[in-house]
Every structure is written in structure tokens, then in C-alpha cells.
């Protein structure tokens, strides 16, 4: 068996094995689930330096010839490993998540492993149609995961499948249009990209863009993620919509924008605008959410905007920022979803107005979510800052100050939103309903996954030069350009401001800035040390605890509360923003709801026409015959 098959075949075979095992071997299914993902990770790390391709003749039909072709390049190699890592961590988490709630439901691990296999398949495919097959496999598994075990997940799962089905069909049509024109091989396509000067090619690009947007969850095709989030297992949300679907969507976006097509300035601008709108629109929606899962999923949407914005610029620094942000987002977003799952598991609620004061009883969850929340808000020296920094620089390099403002503003609002989350969930007075809550009932698996992800947030931020040099830079095409390495972008090298594949960058109006993660980390560490020292020497440890009286009444933890949800309601009163948010909340901007609303009159009319009277039906037949005769005569 060829090496490149390993990341597809290992989880695939393990998944089929779990599927075939009888229900009473539940423990064995779990073991195979975790071991299968672990083996996938090992295989993908082992393959990470492989640069090869392989092809088998797969089918021939009429004029249609298809090869089962795989290829691993500088991009797919680490993307596969990232998928393997995320799938292992969420599998470990799942063992705890399901403990004490009837165990892992039926075929959970089968679907999960098959989704992993499909995701690796997408990243490794060197054939357009093969890519579509794997792509749709992931969609199908998302649906099956979402309906397994939770009754309330069904409507969200259906909506997700419907919206993703639209994206998948766009992909299929786009792929057919490319395939008929240029053949089905991706390497051949990348060797001579399609110029977007013909209407058909523009249409094809737009179709593939729509597919990428639906998968990654960019506005307006994002709507399935928030709906799905409230009824789906936390481990599923963290794994697919939180992380792997983003990787796949952005992978496709990067491929179509950089390798398969040569998009015009106008098309790139469209991508950037979608990115900016997604950043701001979703973050505003996130701020007014009361359900932690919905809030997180709107942030998952918002972060996609940065990736679109970065890749849309088409410059080396922008593409690196977009791809690095994809990596970072999958890590902190998975961590946040998993942390929210832990809170939900122990407290039984996700309503931000009812949570509070959990910092002492759930310290591990708090620590992990705290780090991840700072990372998503773009606080240095965490990984989210490093990648956002590159995106900001790319906006400056592209002479697009408006986009820079959108990106910065979105980042500020993200921070505001996570202050609300941290306050509402972990800080503030603890309502009496939260009194019995304690951490750790799910065993070691859940904290292990969260802590690993949080640690990665720190490592990828402080040592950002390492992923940028070794993985992100080569994926953005820096390998070929000799001396330049990925971290040059971080350090403010103007050479990274040019377009991907372009020769020398044109002169720019602004000078690049430099980001020094070690310096920032050092300063921060010194600051924290000073703080600790002061706390140790000074009076900060001495706390007096006295009963509090509010208006002459004893303080009631359940009444005298200041949950963050109320404070942020004022966002809805902002001029312009408020009406847009109401429109969004009522579903008018959701293509799924809007299409249903638009289609209803047509359906009603058609139903009314079917009167059930034979006379009417005979008249239709005569009408049909008349049409037939008319067309035949009119030839």
C-alpha cells in the first residue's frame, strides 16, 4: 500500500470496524476510536516531509476518465497532521463527555473516524472528482454525528446538511465545469491556472468560492453553525464546524485563489469584502447572544473573515496570515467549544444569565478557556495575535485601510465579547444553582484535551517563527523563493508584501512593522513576576470577608447579580447596527430561512392548482398535447 493512503485508510478502516462491531462491545468501539485517531496522527506526522504523488486508474466511462490520484505538498502535509491532532484530541474529550450519560452513542466513533478519513482525503486528493467525494463524505458524517444521540440536534443537523448540501452542489457543478474544460487532474490545473477573464471561469470560481464559504462558514452561508451548535455534542462542534470544516473550507479557498485560478483584482476584492463583512457582522451577532454555544459559533464565523481577508489580498504576508489564522483558529476554537462543553456538562445550562462564579470550582476549564479567549481576541503573545498581526500588515500592504479598520475593530469587539463570557461564566457572584458544581466528573480525557489545546495556543504564539518558517511559509510558496522564510513576515520584511508567486514587490506607501514575540513574552513575564512579588510582599493576600448589604437587605446571590448579558444588550440600540441585528436574528438574512419564505407562495400555488378534479387534469393533458404539437410544428 502506498504511504499516502495511510491517513485515509487508517481512520477509514477503523471507522468501518467500529461500524461493524456489535453494540454491546461499546468499550472496544471507544478504544478503536481513540487508537484509530492516534494512529492517523502518527501516520500524518511520519509523512510530514513526504512530497510525492501517486495515481491509479479508477474508472473510465464514455469519454470520462478518472484517476484515483493523491499528492502531498507543502500545504497538505501539515494540514493532514493538524486534522489528525484535532481528531485525536476531540476523540479523547468525547470519552469523558459521554461518561455517565449512557456512554458513547451507537456509531459515534465510526462517523468520527470516517469524517477524519474524508478530511484527510480532501487534503490529499489530486483529482477534482475525488476531492468532491471526500468533501461530501465529511458533510454526511457531520449530519450523522449531529443526529446521533441527541434528540434536540435534529433540526440543526437538517439545516446544516441543507446549507452544506447547497455548497457541495456548487462545488460539484464547479468541478464538472473545470473537468470538462481542463481534465480532472489538480496538478495539471495548478500548472496552468484558469484565467478569470471569461464569464464561465468567473462563474466557476464563484461556485467553488461558495462551496468553500459554506464549509468554512462565511457569511451569508454561515447560518447552519449557530443553529446546529445548541443541539449538538460539544465534541462534534469542536471537531467539525469549529475546526476541521474551517480547515477544509480555507484549504479550498486558498487552492482556488492561489493555484487553480488566477483571480482578477475584482474577484479578490469580493473575497476581502466578504471577509470584512463576516468579521463585523458575526461579531456583533456574537455580542448579543445569551447562549454560550451560539455565541462561540458566531465567533467561529467571525474568525473565518480574517482568513478570507488575508487570502483575498493575494500577498505573501496576507496568505500566510490567513493560513496561520486557520491553524490558530482551529486550535483555540476547538478549545473554547470543548470548554463550553465542560461547563454545560457540569452545570446543565448554557444560558449566560444563569451561569456565574465558576472560576474556583472549575479551574482547569477556566484556565484553558481564559487562554483561548485571549488568543481569539488577539492578545499578544498568543497565537491569535501572531496571525492577526500578519493580516493587519497585509491590509496595510494592500493599501486597504478600511479593511484594516474592520479587522482591528472586529478584534476589539471579540475581546469585549469574551470579557462578557468570562465574566458571565467564571467571575461574578455564583448563583445558588451552581453550588454543587465541581470539575472532573468526566475523567481525565476532557481536561487533557483542553489543556493541550491551550498550551498549543501559547506555544504557537510565543514561538510563532517555527510554524511560519517550517509549515505556513512553504505553503504560501516561500520555499521556491530561496532566502526568504516565513518568519520574515513576522519580523517586518518588505519582501513578503508582494503577491504570491510575484517577482519583486512594488514600492509601498507604508513600511512594514515588526512583531517580536520573545520581547513581548519577556516583558509580560517580567510584569507577571513583579505582580506576584508585590502580592507576596504586600497586603494583597489579606482579604476581609464581610457580609454585604444591598439597600438594607442581605445580599442575595440570585437576585443581586450583574450578568454580562444585560450590559451588552445596548449594542442593539446602536444606530444601523440594531436594525441589521434584528434582521439577522429574525432569519431574514439566513439563506435557508429566506429561501423557505420565498418558496412558500410557489408551493402554495402549485398545490392549489392540483384541485383533484379529473376534468382539470384532462385539460392539462390537452394543454400538454397542444404544447407538444406546437413545438413539433414550430421546428
Amino acid at each position, binding site marked *: 500500500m502506498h504511504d499516502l493512503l495511510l491517513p485515509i485508510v487508517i481512520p477509514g478502516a477503523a471507522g468501518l470496524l467500529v461500524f461493524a462491531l456489535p453494540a454491546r462491545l461499546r468499550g472496544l468501539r471507544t478504544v478503536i476510536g481513540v487508537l484509530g485517531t492516534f494512529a492517523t496522527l502518527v501516520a500524518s506526522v511520519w509523512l510530514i516531509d513526504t512530497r510525492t504523488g501517486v495515481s491509479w486508474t479508477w474508472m473510465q466511462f464514455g469519454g470520462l476518465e478518472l484517476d484515483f490520484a493523491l499528492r502531498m505538498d507543502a500545504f497538505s502535509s501539515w494540514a493532514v497532521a493538524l486534522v489528525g491532532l484535532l481528531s485525536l484530541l476531540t476523540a479523547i474529550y468525547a470519552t469523558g463527555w459521554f461518561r455517565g450519560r449512557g456512554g458513547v452513542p451507537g456509531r459515534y466513533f465510526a462517523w468520527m473516524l470516517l469524517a477524519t478519513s474524508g478530511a484527510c482525503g480532501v487534503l490529499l486528493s489530486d483529482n477534482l472528482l475525488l476531492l468532491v467525494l471526500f468533501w461530501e463524505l465529511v458533510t454526511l458524517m457531520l449530519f450523522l454525528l449531529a443526529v446521533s444521540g441527541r434528540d434536540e440536534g435534529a433540526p440543526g443537523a437538517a439545516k446544516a446538511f441543507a446549507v452544506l*448540501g447547497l455548497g457541495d452542489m456548487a462545488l460539484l*457543478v464547479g468541478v464538472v465545469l473545470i473537468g470538462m474544460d481542463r481534465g480532472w487532474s489538480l496538478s495539471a490545473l495548478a500548472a496552468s491556472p484558469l484565467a478569470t477573464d471569461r464569464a464561465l471561469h468567473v462563474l466557476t470560481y464563484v461556485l467553488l468560492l461558495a462551496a468553500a464559504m459554506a464549509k468554512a462558514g462565511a457569511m451569508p452561508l454561515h447560518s447552519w453553525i449557530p443553529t446546529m451548535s445548541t443541539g449538538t455534542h460539544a465534541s462534534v462542534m469542536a471537531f467539525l464546524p469549529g475546526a476541521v470544516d474551517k480547515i477544509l473550507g480555507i484549504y479550498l479557498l486558498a487552492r482556488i485563489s492561489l493555484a487553480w485560478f488566477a483571480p482578477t483584482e475584482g474577484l479578490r476584492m469580493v473575497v476581502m469584502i466578504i471577509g470584512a463583512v463576516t468579521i463585523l457582522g458575526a461579531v456583533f451577532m456574537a455580542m448579543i447572544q445569551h447562549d454560550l454555544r451560539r455565541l462561540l459559533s458566531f465567533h467561529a464565523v467571525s474568525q473565518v473573515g480574517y482568513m478570507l481577508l488575508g487570502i483575498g489580498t493575494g500577498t505573501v504576508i496576507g496568505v500566510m496570515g490567513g493560513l496561520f489564522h486557520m491553524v490558530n483558529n482551529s486550535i483555540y476554537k476547538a478549545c473554547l467549544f470543548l470548554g463550553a462543553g465542560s461547563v454545560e456538562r457540569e452545570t446543565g445550562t448554557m444560558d449566560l444569565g444563569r451561569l456565574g462564579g465558576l472560576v474556583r470550582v472549575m479551574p482547569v476549564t477556566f484556565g484553558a478557556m481564559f487562554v483561548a479567549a485571549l488568543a481569539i481576541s488577539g492578545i499578544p503573545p498568543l497565537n491569535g495575535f501572531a496571525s492577526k498581526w500578519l493580516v493587519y500588515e497585509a491590509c496595510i500592504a494592500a493599501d486597504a485601510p478600511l479593511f484594516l479598520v474592520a479587522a482591528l475593530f472586529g478584534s476589539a469587539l471579540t475581546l469585549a465579547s469574551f470579557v462578557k463570557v468570562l465574566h458571565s461564566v467564571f467571575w461574578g457572584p455564583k448563583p445558588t444553582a451552581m453550588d454543587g458544581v465541581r470539575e472532573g466528573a468526566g475523567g481525565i480525557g476532557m481536561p487533557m484535551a483542553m489543556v493541550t489545546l491551550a498550551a498549543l495556543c501559547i506555544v504557537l504564539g510565543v514561538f510563532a517563527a517555527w510554524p511560519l518558517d517550517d509549515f505556513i511559509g512553504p505553503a504560501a510558496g516561500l520555499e521556491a523563493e530561496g532566502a526568504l522564510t516565513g518568519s520574515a513576515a513576522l519580523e517586518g520584511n518588505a519582501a513578503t508584501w508582494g503577491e504570491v508567486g510575484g517577482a519583486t514587490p512594488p514600492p509601498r506607501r507604508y513600511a512594514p512593522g515588526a512583531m517580536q514575540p520573545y520581547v513581548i513574552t519577556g516583558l509580560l513575564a517580567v510584569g507577571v513576576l513583579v505582580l506576584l512579588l508585590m502580592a507576596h510582599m504586600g497586603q494583597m493576600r489579606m482579604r476581609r470577608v464581610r457580609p454585604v448589604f444591598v439597600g438594607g437587605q442581605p445580599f442575595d446571590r440570585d437576585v443581586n447579580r450583574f450578568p454580562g448579558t444585560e450590559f451588552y444588550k445596548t449594542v442593539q440600540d446602536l444606530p444601523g447596527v440594531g436594525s441589521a441585528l434584528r434582521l439577522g436574528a429574525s432569519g431574514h438574512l439566513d439563506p435557508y430561512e429566506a429561501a423557505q419564505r420565498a418558496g412558500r407562495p410557489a408551493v402554495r400555488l402549485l398545490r392549489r392548482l392540483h384541485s383533484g378534479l379529473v376534468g382539470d387534469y384532462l385539460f392539462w393533458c390537452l394543454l400538454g398535447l397542444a404544447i407538444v404539437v406546437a413545438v413539433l410544428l414550430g421546428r
Partner: protein
Amino acid sequence: MLQLIPLFVLIPLGAAFACLLVKRRVPAMAPMLSLVGVLALLALAVTGSVQGAAGASIAGGWSLESQGTTSFLPGIALVFDGLSAVFLLLVAVVSTAVLVFGFRYMETYEGRPLYYALLNLLIAGMNGAVLAGDLFNLYVFVEIASIASYALVAFGTGGREVEAAFKYLILGAVASASILLGIGLIYAATGLLNMADVGTAVAAGGIPETTLLAATALFLAGLGLKAAMMPFHAWLPDAHPSAPAPISAMLSGLLIKTLGIYALVRILYLVIGMDGALGGSLQTLLLVLGCLSMVGGVLLALGQTDLKRLLAYSSISQMGFVLVALGTNTWLGVAAAIFHAMNHALFKGALFLSAGSLERIAGTRDISKMGGIARIAPATTIGAVGASLSIAGVPPFNGFWSKLLILIALFTAGMHVVGAIAAATAVLTLVTFVKVQQRVLFGALPERLKGAHDVPASMSLPVIALAVLCLIGGLLWPLGLDDWVGGAASAVRTDGPTNEAPAEYRRMVHSEGRQP
């Protein structure tokens, strides 16, 4: 093999009569006789498909002597070629599943031997129509199958069933009359009935143009009615849901294809000729009416809460896919159409059967009153989910491949707008069936259904078998099934990889049809 061809008609016909004979004394024999019959058909069809034997067989045959010369009048010419083989196998497979499903399902009905007799008659009619080598016998077999189906729709003898059967009967009679009229016009003009001969005559310009045009219009209207092409579809959403579930599966899964699609392919491609003078207009008609059926059918399905009516409307939509694929007038298009018709038979058969199971479990057909049935009926759920994913065009199920082929055929032929409509319809189909799954199988189980339990294995296994065939069809498609579908398409189109088949068909019917 060639000598055995008449058995495709004789076995079910014999079984039908045998069922009536045992009706009084040993009614329990009827299901067994039918089972033996369909299993024999299945064996025959598999053998025929594997051997790939093409040929003609003449049942009967009379010689005529006049003025010293002997001319031979052929009997009933039955022709077995790539196209017939596909449909025969399909009829055998779906009939087997339907029959087994019906053993337990039909227990609540009276007069079961009659049901088995009618079912066998239906099979005989469909097999005959698929094998018939001349227009008149095609008509006769179509009538046999139609009349059996009218009776089967009314089999429940309730008010709704009889009303639906009555509408179906009237519109069916209109269809038969126009087909017969078309045949009459052609016979009057040429004195020929043999499809190959008529085709040659038409190609040589042996028929006055007006006659040909009138006959074509009548064929299209008549066969369009049988195939439930919009606007000729109105009988179907009443008739298919009203029949007992196994019969719904037969009607939606097989009848509209054998009487409608198969006959359309044969007559349009081999008799009238899609490359002839009328070809362009016929293409336009197939594309326009196909699009109408696709979009109208799926919209009506989306608005339905009655599970079986929803499935019936979706059948109209799926026939639209087949029609637009035929409208491309290319080998790839015909192959895609045949493959989609095949797949539709499998998954729609499975869906109608599982609708029957779900109706038994939930006591209703209203999907808004169901929910969470996956909990209480795992076996039914597997079959229903598999078939739904297949019709929704999700890989690796067979429905994905046929939709892909249809899209490729349309785009290759330069019909981008129709391709876009087909793609949109495919998305709406996915939405329809995802919503059905969500509301029927998943979600919360209503209190009312807490004590309900799954149907017996003899009802769930046939559905699962059909769903597994959908999956196998999808998985094996890249590994060799394509030859088989391609062979069927090559029977009518010459622009494929092999191009002797239509001529071969003509030769078989011409020469062997005239041997005494």
C-alpha cells in the same frame, strides 16, 4: 438463453393464473407460487445480464400462402438486448423485494390471492413491454400492466383508493388511446408494426411528414402520461399513495419507467429517430417538460406532509432528471438517464416500502405527527436512511453517480441552463429528504409512539436489501457496473464506445423475425 426469453412473460402470466386457481382451496399457496415465479425471473434476468446475450425470439409465427409465394407473418417478437436486460433485471429485483415485503404487510387486506394474481399480471405486462419487438405488442403489454395497476390501486376498496383508481383509469385510458392512435397512424401509412422496420422506413422518409408529426405528438402525450411527465402527471400523486405500500413501490419504482421511460427511449430513439427531422423539436420538448417536472415535482414534494404523497411528487421530479438527460440526445445522456432510472427504481422502491413500514409503526402517514422513530425501529431506519441518502445524491450512494453523469451530460452538450436547474433541483431534493429524516426518524419521540415497535424482519430486510443495492451500485459503479449501463445506452445511441448495437437490433428483428 434465447429460447428462454418468452419465459420472462410466461412465468408471471402462469403464476397469475395459478394464483387464481388456488384462490378457493389453498389461498396460502398464492404467495409461495409468486415467490417461486419472481425468483425464477431473477435467476433468468441475472443469467441474461451476465451472459450479455442479445437476440430475438418469436412466440407463435404463422405462415401465409397466397398466389404461390409463401410469406411469413411473425408471431410475437420478443427482443432481448442491452436495454431490455437492464430493465428486466430491475423488474425482477424490485419485484422480489416488494413481494417479500408484502407477505406480512398485506395480511391486513382481504382477498390476498387476487393481489398476488394482479401483481404477477403487472410483472408480466412490464416484462412484455420491455421485450416487445413491435409497436402493437408493446401496446398490448402496456395495457396489461396498466389494467393490473388500476385494480391494484383500488385494492384497499376505500373511498380514497377507488377515487384515485378512477382518476388513474380515466387518464390511463386517455394515454392508451393516444398511443394506439399513434400506432394506427403509423400502420396506416406504412403497413408496418415492427419497430425496427418502422424505424428504417421513417429514416428513409417513407412516412408523410404530417402523419409522422401527429403520431409523434400522440406517442409523446401517451407515454408522457405513463411516465408522469408534467403536465401529464396529475394522476400519479393520487394513485401512487393510495395503493398498498408494496404496490406503490411497484408503481413508482418500476411502472413509470418500464411503460414510460423505456418505451419513450425505444420509440423516440429507434422508431422516430432523435437525429431525424423531428429530432430538434423532440429535444426541446424533453428538456422543457423535463425541467418543468423536475422543479414542479420537487416543490410540491417540499410542501407535503403526507409521506407517501411526498414520495410520489418526488418521483415526478426524478423522472424529470431522466427526461432532461434523454433530451441531450447523446450516448452519455442516454446512459445517465438509464442509470438514473435504474437507481430511482431501487431507492424509490425502498422509500415506498419503508413508508409502508413507518405507517405501520406510527399509525399515520403525516410526517408532522412522527418523530424519533430511529429509537424504536432501528432496522426500518437503516433502510430508510440509506434510500434517502441515495435519492439525495450523497456519495457513495448510486444516486450521486447518476446525478453527476446527468450534470456532465448536460454541460457537455452545452445545456448550461438546464444543468443549473438540475443542480438546483438536486439541492432541493436533498433538502426534502433531509427534512423527512429529521421529522420522521430523528428528533424527539412523541408520547403517543412510546410503546410502538419495529416491523418484522420480513418487512425490514427487503428495504435494507434495496438500500444495500443502492450502496453497492454506488461503490461498484467505478469498478465495472459502467459497462452494463453503457451497454444499455449503446443499444440506442451510436456515438458511444461501441456503435453497432442499434444496427444489431434492427438486424435481429429483421432477419430472425421473418424465419418461419
